[in-house]
């Protein structure tokens, strides 16, 4: 440009300047290393320090894994073999594998049932996670909770079938009465479902052994299976409840709004561990003495309440991030509140909230280990209790906790990777 001003200010370009490649040394691995690892004295020192730390860790951990002992019966045999070579005692995982996964009271002849339920879980969750799968698969997702209950708890198949029947009847009652008003639909549905359950209850009592699997009581559930049950059930329940709470908090109806605000603020202000103690001990006082609400059910209620309050706040953030114009555009096209919320507002708000929701879900899944303090034998409870206090394996801390960490890490990392994939997929070029 400088020469253009030499003679005159008027300038007309007659030839296009073709794009040229960047000068050499501006691309490639050498450039990357120079820029990112050795860009200055401080950065170089930090790089070398980092390499040294990684080296020390690997050198420290490698013999522990490489000299690991498998296939012995107790810690004394194990110590004899390792003899100070720093090897780990992985035999404990081998020996107590089934206890770690299923708890120590689940009948070993029935292990196939929760395993099968676990495999089916992937089939059930797939159409929810991957929107391009055929929608018909959602039918299986709907049946899955009842099937999984039947597989894990056993008893007559009539129980899950009648439970499902109640929901189906309630759904059709809702569809039928919704035309009059939403409230009529809701109450009609609840009433229809309750009546169905009451009537079919007699059927279950009459034939308690119809197509029955051996029953397993809730107190016999344990191990990682218990964490998985609590994690999946609570996440899948707390998401819809969280959405409802977030919408309720924005409602123009003051009573609904205040119920939601008080619920959210109260639950967020109380530690989860307190809620779990309430579930374990105090909740029993609220029910008549002869009814005994299942302990797992009580824990599920508490964890779900806890996480739905957090999810509600995350989603509220997503709702607040939407421009007002989106609501106005939906209104001006004549969409009603339910349609606008479902088709316009929620898809966008949920998309914004994905990182936050995943954060809560991962946290919730790890928090399920807190049930070990109310003497339930989940994975952590199993390790702390029956395994570490047995004469065979007392003192094998590192191997067991490393195993627990790996199990949780695999699940949580999987969730995190999925959410990042989903975020990329939902990217539609705006913002």
């Amino acid at each position: 440009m400088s020469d253009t001003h030499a003679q005159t200010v008027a300038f007309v370009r007659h030839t296009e300047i073709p794009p040229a490649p960047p000068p050499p040394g501006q691309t490639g691995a050498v450039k990357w290393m120079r820029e990112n690892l050795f860009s200055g004295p401080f950065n170089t020192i930090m790089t070398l320090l980092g390499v040294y730390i990684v080296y020390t860790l690997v050198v420290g951990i490698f013999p522990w894994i490489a000299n690991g002992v498998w296939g012995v019966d107790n810690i004394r045999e194990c110590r004899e073999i390792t003899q100070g070579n720093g090897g780990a005692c992985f035999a404990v995982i081998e020996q107590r594998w089934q206890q770690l996964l299923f708890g120590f009271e689940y009948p070993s002849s029935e292990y196939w049932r929760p395993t099968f339920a676990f495999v089916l879980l992937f089939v059930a969750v797939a159409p929810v996670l991957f929107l391009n799968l055929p929608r018909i698969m959602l039918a299986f997702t709907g049946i899955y909770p009842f099937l999984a209950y039947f597989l894990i708890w056993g008893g007559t198949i009539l129980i899950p079938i009648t439970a499902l029947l109640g929901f189906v009847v309630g759904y059709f009652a809702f569809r039928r009465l919704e035309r009059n008003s939403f409230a009529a639909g809701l109450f009609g549905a609840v009433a229809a479902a309750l009546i169905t359950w009451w009537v079919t209850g007699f059927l279950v009592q009459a034939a308690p052994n119809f197509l029955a699997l051996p029953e397993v009581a809730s107190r016999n559930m344990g191990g990682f299976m218990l964490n998985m049950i609590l994690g999946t059930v609570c996440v899948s329940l707390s998401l819809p409840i969280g959405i409802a709470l977030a919408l309720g908090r924005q409602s123009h109806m003051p009573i609904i709004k205040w119920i939601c605000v008080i619920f959210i603020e109260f639950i967020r202000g109380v530690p989860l561990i307190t809620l779990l103690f309430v579930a374990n001990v105090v909740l029993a006082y609220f029910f008549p003495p002869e009814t005994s609400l299942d302990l797992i059910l009580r824990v599920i209620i508490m964890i779900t309440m806890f996480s739905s309050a957090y999810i509600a706040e995350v989603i509220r953030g997503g709702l607040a991030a939407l421009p007002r114009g989106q609501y106005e555009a939906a209104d001006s096209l004549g969409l009603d509140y339910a349609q606008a919320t479902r088709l316009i507002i929620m898809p966008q708000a949920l998309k914004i909230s994905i990182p936050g929701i995943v954060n809560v879900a991962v946290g919730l899944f790890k928090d399920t280990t807190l049930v070990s303090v109310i003497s339930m034998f989940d994975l952590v409870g199993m390790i702390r209790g029956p395994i570490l206090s047995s004469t065979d394996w007392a003192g094998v801390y590192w191997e067991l906790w490393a195993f627990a960490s790996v199990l949780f890490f695999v699940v949580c990392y999987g969730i995190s990777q999925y959410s990042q994939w989903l975020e990329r997929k939902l990217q539609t070029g705006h913002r």
Partner: protein
Amino acid sequence: MNETAAMQVSDEVAIDIQGMNKWYGTFHVLRDIDLTVFRGERIVICGPSGSGKSTLIRCINALEEHQQGSITVDGTLLSSDLKNIDTIRSEVGMCFQHFNLFPHLTILENCTLAPIWVRKTPKKEAEETAMHFLEKVKIPDQALKYPGQLSGGQQQRVAIARSLCMRPRIMLFDEPTSALDPEMIKEVLDTMIELAEEGMTMLCVTHEMGFARQVANRVIFMDAGQIVEQNEPEEFFNNPKSERTQLFLSQILGH
């Protein structure tokens, strides 16, 4: 143009506003608005910012609530009855300054959403209608893209097509070209002119005075929440009566 336009105006009333008042808290934004719009009329509303012109047209499809007076659209009285509001909204299309397309849906889905869910049109038919109107605004080839991939002018034309898919009898435009680059204003105005020539009843809040001269058969000037002056465009621009209007016109036409 103006004469043919005048012929299209019928004496059937499309919108009737009587003694309408609106407050934001204690601030009196709209004061004693009386306005009758006949079918096929094209009205341009102008005025300084904060004069209540956007608020006025937003009251017509109940995006804003008015506190006093009556608004009747196509014979339906606008009240707090949700059924009436929904009826009016499905008859009245609206375009916004910032387009307000739904960014998570494709252009085609933006256009078919309301017909499918509000009018219960079968999906196939809704898509045909949408393509028809997208061709009309000259962007059928963008149908499968997302709004974020389009330019501002294209987005605003999609927004117009989206409103038209509901087959509205009245169109409201709230400063449709104010957020656009100068190069894109024309393509949107051309679309609006075409719409006007087909006899659509239109209320436009805009500062495009060339558009007002060419298309409008009435120009309304608002200030401080009141209708200060209204007249045919020629008279309004060449011979403004009120001092306030003269000042406003000298400011926007003076450079």
